[in-house]
């Protein structure tokens, strides 16, 4: 999820520029003094401006003007949002909410936001979403504090050329058949490592986090129990994911990189690893790292263990602070921006995978193919992944807990800790977070 934050940060600067140049695009609709200005407070890149959605909405509703302010990274954005929630003022008409803090907002600040479950069209809204997406923004007493924008269903990306060189199959169906389970995935890794023709210096997977992050969300529980309280040691997701990821790290299957570090970025271009866990948004990250030269290198297979459960990473919501001046208009805009038709457009124009099952099942999405990723049927791959995701509870600490495990796995990979020590380190760090 931190990852999500950073992937989005990459486009933040571009967005700021776009804002400067097109910020007031629709203000010429009429200046009779009755115009309402709606503000959106967002982070990273939601892509609405670029996709032309604001302009379209303002054309449909001449009385509305839309302005957005964007913070590049979701971390600082959330810090600012928290102080505004504490002060009870200063919020925009619509606020972006990320997976990393949606459960904190739901648990502690639900009163500050419009309850979409109490809207007249609540049933219609709910039925358009994947159940887990709707669920993640729900409170214990059934309030819903945000409408889902995008989602990050996960698949496994692999380098076709490196697979071929190591004597592994390259066809997506055959590759998916290599790893029905994570154990099979690790066995394939051993096979890759043992291959005499393997490209020198290349590892099977970029980092232990490519195993841990997807696998931890395939259990019955991740980091929280049903009440949203953090559980770590008793979580089946954590236990199995730790076992798998620490094995991958200890066996030298990883390139010993920390995800989103500079070395990791450089490693893309250098072909230092053959597989990487791919939430849908990772495709644009890979594309931006490799540029045109990377076209046709990568392909996409099914995530190991998906027959048991799919896995997601990242995703956002739009919430409407109930203290705003134009709550009604803001609610209407939030519903429009997140409606299935608009989610389809966000996918086809900006590459954000829908969190609306209706949108994901529409032909424009379901039949989509990525030329860059060797004509992979991305609509189908990620649609199946999203449909296989089970509802699991989330906690306000998910991001930090995952980062703690990710750091601990790095120490296993670089050999400075054995798995048991590293696990103890992670628990100690997590105690600081949740304690």
């Amino acid at each position, binding site marked *: 999820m931190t990852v999500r934050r950073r992937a989005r940060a990459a486009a933040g600067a571009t967005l700021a520029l776009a804002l400067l140049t097109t910020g007031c695009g629709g203000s010429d609709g009429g200046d009779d003094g009755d115009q309402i200005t709606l503000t959106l407070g967002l982070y990273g890149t939601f892509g609405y401006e670029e996709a032309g959605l604001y302009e379209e909405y303002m054309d449909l509703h001449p009385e509305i003007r839309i302005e957005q302010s964007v913070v590049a990274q979701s*971390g600082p954005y959330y810090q600012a949002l*928290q102080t505004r929630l*504490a002060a009870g003022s200063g919020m925009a008409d619509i606020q972006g909410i990320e997976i990393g803090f949606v459960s904190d907002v739901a648990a502690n600040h639900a009163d500050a936001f419009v309850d979409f479950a109490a809207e007249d069209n609540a049933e219609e809204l709910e039925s358009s979403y994947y159940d887990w997406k709707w669920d993640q923004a729900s409170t214990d007493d059934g309030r819903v504090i945000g409408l889902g924008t995008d989602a990050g269903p996960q698949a496994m990306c692999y380098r076709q050329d490196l697979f071929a060189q190591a004597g592994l199959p390259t066809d997506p169906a055959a590759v998916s058949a290599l790893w029905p389970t994570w154990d099979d995935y690790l066995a394939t890794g051993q096979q890759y490592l043992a291959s005499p023709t393997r490209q020198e210096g290349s590892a099977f997977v970029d980092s232990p986090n490519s195993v841990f992050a997807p696998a931890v969300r395939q259990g019955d529980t991740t980091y929280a129990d049903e009440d949203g309280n953090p559980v770590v040691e008793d979580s089946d997701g954590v236990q199995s994911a730790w076992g798998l990821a620490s094995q991958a790290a200890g066996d030298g299957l990883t390139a010993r990189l920390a995800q*989103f*570090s500079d*070395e990791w970025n450089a490693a893309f271009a250098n072909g230092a690893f053959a597989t990487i866990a791919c939430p849908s948004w990772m495709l644009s990250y890979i594309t931006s790292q490799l540029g045109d030269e990377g076209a046709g290198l990568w392909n996409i297979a099914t995530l190991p263990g998906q027959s048991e459960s799919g896995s997601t990473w990242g995703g956002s919501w739009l919430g409407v602070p109930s203290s705003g001046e134009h709550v009604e208009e803001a609610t209407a805009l939030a519903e429009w921006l997140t409606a299935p038709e608009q989610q389809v457009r966000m996918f086809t124009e900006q590459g954000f995978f829908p969190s609306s099952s209706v949108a994901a099942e529409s032909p424009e999405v379901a039949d989509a193919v990525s030329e860059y990723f060797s004509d992979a049927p991305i609509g189908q791959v990620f649609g199946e992944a999203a449909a296989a995701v089970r509802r699991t509870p989330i906690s306000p600490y998910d991001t930090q807990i995952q*980062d703690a495990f990710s*750091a601990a796995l790095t120490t296993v990979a670089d050999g400075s800790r054995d798995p048991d020590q590293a696990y103890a380190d992670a628990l100690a760090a997590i105690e*600081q*977070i949740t304690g």
Partner: protein
Amino acid sequence: MTLADDSPRTVTAPAVPVPPDPTPPPVPRRRGPSLSRNRWGYAYVAPFFVVFGAFSLFPFLFTAWVSLHDARLSDIGGGTFVGLDNYAALLTNDFFWNALRNTITIGVLSTVPQLCLALGLAHLLHYKLRGRTFFRTLMLVPYATSIAAATLVFATLFGRDYGIINTALEAVGLDRIDWESGTLSSQVAIAVIVTWRWTGYNALIYLAAMQSIPGELYEAAEMDGASKWRQFLHVTIPSLRPTILFTVVVSTIGAVQLFGEPLLFGGNGATTGGARNQYQTLGLLMYQQGWTNFNIGQAATTAWAMFLIILAVVGSAALVGRYRARREGARR
């Protein structure tokens, strides 16, 4: 008291410049009429105190108040009052002691070479060199570079797989070093960044102080047959003592607050200071507690602990200074 008055044997005695008299005669204070007469003076200084109050004094006191509460960032004014529990917890917190240890080792690794190099550089620049203004200006360039830019460049240089330093090590037949993941290696790397940035700044301060040392001292020393090296040891350094004390204090305060370099050195924005917290400093720990874990009460406590540490450093420096001054006064 100049050296010219002394016998040649005592050239080595620490002498000039004379430290301020430790007990100046009490100046009678004027009160009453001056208060109203200086009304405009107060008006002129008021903006400073208003800004100081809003942005320094209030946060300072508010931090103390928050540190007595179990507070989260989203409820910073609330939280339950826990007295000194946060401080007690801090003293038994492994992460705090680890960060303190790292802060001290990185501090020593950066401050000592930094000041030694600065002293040497200042000495060289004190000679009449062709284009010395150019060199003096050049020394300030690292200081004028942003911490972020410098750290990002150094992090790339120290990269494990593609860093130029490892490439160079390999070229001369040495092993590659995983700078970031080792404890000592990562701390050395960070110390290099700090040293690079601050050496020139300190050198200029030393240079300024050197220029105020009377030339007669050197002439006298030269007449006594002291080599350039001995002149440096026995004239320059003793004369610079107050300046050295000043730079030690300032560098130590900087070392206690070290934050930007370890934050950016990891390259992925993590506030842990390495996967094993191997280069997490106190400043970074505070940031992690407050702005990653949102435990603002804990962060406020760490902030106050840092303040007390700095107070202790400055206090002991003042004691050293006073002791020295008194000793010299007695000798005189």
